[in-house]
C-alpha cells in the first residue's frame, strides 16, 4: 500500500531526472559543437559544421552570436553550422524540431544583430517557417536595409497570411518600394493594378566609349608594345 502511494512520486522524480539528463545531454552537445566551431583548425571546424544538424534548436542562439565573431572563419563556420541545423530540421516528418528551430531563429531575429546576420536568419526562416514568421518578417518591410529580403521571404512563405501581408505592404510600404511588392504578389499569382515592373527598363550607364578604327588601331599598337616589352623583360 505504501509502495503504491509512493509510486506517482517516484514516476515524477524519474521523469524529472530523465528531463534533466536530456537537458544536460543537449547542453553538452551544444558545448561540444561550439568548441569545434571556434577551433583554430579548419578541419575541426568542419567536423562541427558537418555534425551540427542533430544538435538542433538548442544551438541556434549561441551559433547566431558566433556568426558575429571577429574571427572571419569562425563566423563563417557558425553560419554554415546553422544552415545545416535548418536543413536537418526541415526533413520530412520532423515538424516539432522544425518548429523549435524556427522559434529560436525568430527570437534571434528580434534581438540585436548585425544586418548581414539578420539577412541570413531571414533566409533560413524562409525555408522552414509558416504563418508564425509572417508578422516579424512583414515588420521588416519598414527596415531600409532589410526590406527587399523581407519582401522575397514573404513571397516564399506559403499560405494566405503571407499573401495578406504582401497585400498590406502594397498599401503601407514607401511608395518607391511598392513595385517590388507588386512583383511578389504577381509571382504568387495575384493581380495587381498599377506598379508595373521596370524589369526591362535599362538604367545602368557605362563610361566605356565606342572605339572607331583609329582608336582600335591605337589599342592594337599599345597591346603589341606591351607584349614586346614583357617579352624583353622575360629575356633579361
Amino acid at each position, binding site marked *: 500500500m505504501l509502495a503504491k502511494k509512493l509510486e506517482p512520486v517516484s514516476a515524477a522524480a524519474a521523469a524529472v531526472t530523465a528531463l534533466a539528463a536530456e537537458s544536460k545531454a543537449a547542453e553538452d552537445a551544444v558545448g561540444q559543437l561550439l568548441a569545434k566551431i571556434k577551433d583554430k583548425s*579548419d*578541419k575541426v*571546424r*568542419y567536423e562541427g*559544421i*558537418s555534425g551540427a*544538424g542533430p544538435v538542433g534548436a538548442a544551438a541556434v542562439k549561441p551559433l547566431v552570436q558566433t556568426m558575429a565573431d571577429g574571427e*572571419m*572563419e569562425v563566423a*563563417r*563556420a557558425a553560419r*554554415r553550422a546553422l544552415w*545545416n541545423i535548418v*536543413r*536537418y530540421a*526541415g*526533413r*520530412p516528418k520532423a515538424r516539432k524540431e522544425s518548429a523549435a528551430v524556427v522559434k529560436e531563429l525568430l527570437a534571434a531575429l528580434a534581438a540585436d544583430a548585425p544586418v*548581414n546576420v539578420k*539577412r541570413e536568419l531571414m*533566409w533560413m526562416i*524562409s*525555408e*522552414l517557417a509558416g504563418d508564425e514568421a509572417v508578422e516579424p518578417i512583414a515588420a521588416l518591410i519598414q527596415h531600409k536595409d532589410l526590406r*527587399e*529580403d523581407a*519582401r*522575397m*521571404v514573404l*513571397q*516564399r512563405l*506559403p499560405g494566405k497570411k503571407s499573401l495578406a501581408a504582401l497585400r498590406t505592404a502594397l498599401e503601407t510600404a514607401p511608395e518607391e518600394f511598392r*513595385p*517590388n511588392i507588386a*512583383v*511578389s504578389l504577381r*509571382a504568387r499569382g495575384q493581380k495587381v493594378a498599377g506598379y508595373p*515592373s*521596370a*524589369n*526591362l*527598363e*535599362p*538604367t*545602368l*550607364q*557605362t*563610361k*566605356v*566609349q*565606342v*572605339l*572607331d*578604327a583609329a*582608336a*582600335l588601331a591605337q*589599342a*592594337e599598337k599599345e*597591346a603589341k608594345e606591351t607584349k614586346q616589352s614583357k617579352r624583353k623583360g622575360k629575356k633579361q
Partner: protein
Amino acid sequence: MSGKMQLNRRRFLAAAGAAFGAPYFIPSSVFAAPGRPGANERITVALIGAGGRGNGLMKELDRSDVGHEAQTVAICDVDENRLANSLKSYEPGVKPYRDYRYILERKDIDAVVIATPDHWHAVMTVHAAECGKHIYVEKPACCTIEEGKKMIEAVNKAKVACQVGSQGRSQPEAYMMHRYLVNGNIGKVSKVWAWHYVSPSDNSPVPDSDPPPELDWDAWLGPLRWRPYNRRYLPGSFRWMMESGGGQIRDRGAHVMSCAMWWMGADGTGPVTVEAKNVVFPTQGVWDACVEMEVTYEFKNPDWTLIWAQKGEKTHPDAPPAEERAPNENQISRPGYGAIYFGDKGQCHHWGGDGGTWAEKKVREWQPGPGAKDVRKSPGHFEDWFEGIKTGAKTIMNIEAAVGVANLTILGNLSAILGRKLQWDQEKYTIVGDAEAQRLMSRPQRYPWVF
C-alpha cells in the same frame, strides 16, 4: 530605326510566320537599311558577359561555318575594365553597354550570346525572348527548377531559337557514341557512370570588402539576394559558389549528363529518385559547392541508373586512363572526366563531353552495316543554332532538353545540401514529400532583376 520601321518588321514577321506556318527569319539589318534590302543579310549579334568564356564563344562563332553570316554589334559587361578590354577584340563601332537591357531594346539586334555567371542565365534568357531575340545561352541553363520552367515558357511563346551551350552534343565523336549505342553494340544500357575530378577548396580565404571601382557589384549579383562583395566570388570562381555556379556537377555535369540524356533517348524524362552521398564540402572560405559527391539518379520505364561521381584528387580514381591515339588522330586533352556506359552485352566509354568529346577506339572504328540506325548529326553548335534561327528547326540543345539536364544538376546539389534522398515526379514537375526541398525549387529574385 524609326518606330514605324520597327512596327513594320514585327508585322512582317508575324505575317510571314502565319503564312508559312513556321518561324521565318528576316535579319534585322535588312530593315535597318531602307532602300538596300539584302545588302547586309548578316545576323546581328550582341554578347552579354564579356569575360574569357564570352569572348571565347564569339571567337568560336567567328571561326565557325556561319561566322560570315554573323555580325557582332554590341557587347555588355558589368565590369568596366573587362568591357573596355574586350571591346578591343571586335570591329570598330561595336557598342559597349553595362546594362544588357539597352541591347534588348535595340531593334537592329537579332540575337544575343549570354555568357554570364549561371545566376543570370534565366532572367536574361526570359527577357531576351520577351524582346524577340534569338538566344545562345551558356550551360547550365538554370539554377532552380522554376527558372527552367520560365525559360521554356518564354522561349516557346516568343518562338525564338535557343541553343544552350552544352556543345558536346555537336561533337563528331559524340555522334559516333550515339550511333554506336542506339545500334545495340553493348545491348540494353542499364547504367551510365559519369566521373569527374573534384571541385576546388579555397586555401586562402579573404574577408568581405568593398568592390573594386570598375565593378558594378549590385548588377553582378542581379537576381541573387544581396550580400557584401568578396573577391573570391568572381570572375571564374563564381563556379564554386552554390548559388551562382554550383560546382563541377553543374559545370561539367551539364555536359557529360547532357550526352547521357541525349544518347539514352531520355530528353523530356526525369529521374524518380535523386540521392547524393559521400558529400564533402569545403572546410573554409566562401566557396560552398561540393568538393566531392556521388549522386545516383534512378530512372523508370525504361529503368536505368545515372551516376555522377565526383571524387579523387586530380581525376577520378576509377576513371579509364586516357587512350593513346595516333598522332594524326584527335588527341584527348581533357581525360579527367567522361562516362562509362554499361549494357547487357558490354560497355563503352568516352572522355570529355563538352567542346572536347572523345569516344574510345572501338566506337570510332565501328562501321554501320546495312539497315543500321542513324542519329542526328549536328553541323556544329553555332551552325545548328543559326539553322534554328533561319528555319525554326529545334536546336540540338534546345531549351527543354537543357533545362532537363540542368534539373539533374539542381536536384543533385539539393540532395547534397539537404542531406537526404529526393523523390521527383517528372509529370507533375515537382519534388514529392519534402516541403523544404519544394520551397528550394524556386528562389525569389531581387527587383528589378525579375521575370
